[in-house]
């Protein structure tokens, strides 16, 4: 896919979670917090793919039946 430019994203997270994340980075599980957050999001998407698909299908049905176009 090639090298992608990175962008800084600001977000608010519970301090407790941040402390746990920093501990994982310090222990060597992740290169840095950015790496951890990206991996967490990718794993969430992998684990919830069926739920996402069902939601998208429901949205499609709703738009198909009642869309304004």
């Amino acid at each position, binding site marked *: 896919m090639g090298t992608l*430019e*990175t962008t800084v994203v600001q977000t608010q997270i519970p301090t407790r979670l941040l402390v746990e994340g920093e501990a994982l980075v310090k222990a060597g599980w992740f290169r840095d917090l950015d790496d951890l957050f990206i991996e967490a999001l990718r794993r969430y998407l992998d684990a919830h793919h069926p739920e996402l698909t069902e939601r998208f299908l429901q949205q499609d*049905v709703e738009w198909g039946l009642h*869309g304004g176009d």
Partner: protein
Amino acid sequence: MHLDELLALDLLADFSAVLVPQAVWAEVDHHRPEALRHAEVSVSQTMVQVEADPAVDTLIQTLSLRAGKQAAIRLARQRPNAILLTDDAAARLAAEGLSLSVHGTLGILIRAIRRGQRTPQEVIGLLESIPA
């Protein structure tokens, strides 16, 4: 491409234009070239300006979107009144994050009933023909 596989590409005929980013055009032209030359559908190959857009760039990287999906997202972002058509979950998630109007093949099929392009029975037949 899924609509063409279902022989239902004509369901896009009542959209004023179907814009296909160059990266997607190349892929479709390789696998299903006839989909780009449908007599009833106004399909146009479209160059996508890659503009600095932090929100798009972040979502593209985070969701690992490939070139075609990236281009489609960027094109939809530049056309506020457009509808992004994709069945890719990651691309739809990115589109939602950018508040883009996004729908998939099922939406087009169901819409065909509302628009009088197909009867409910015909759409059910198309849905049943989709491989599990």
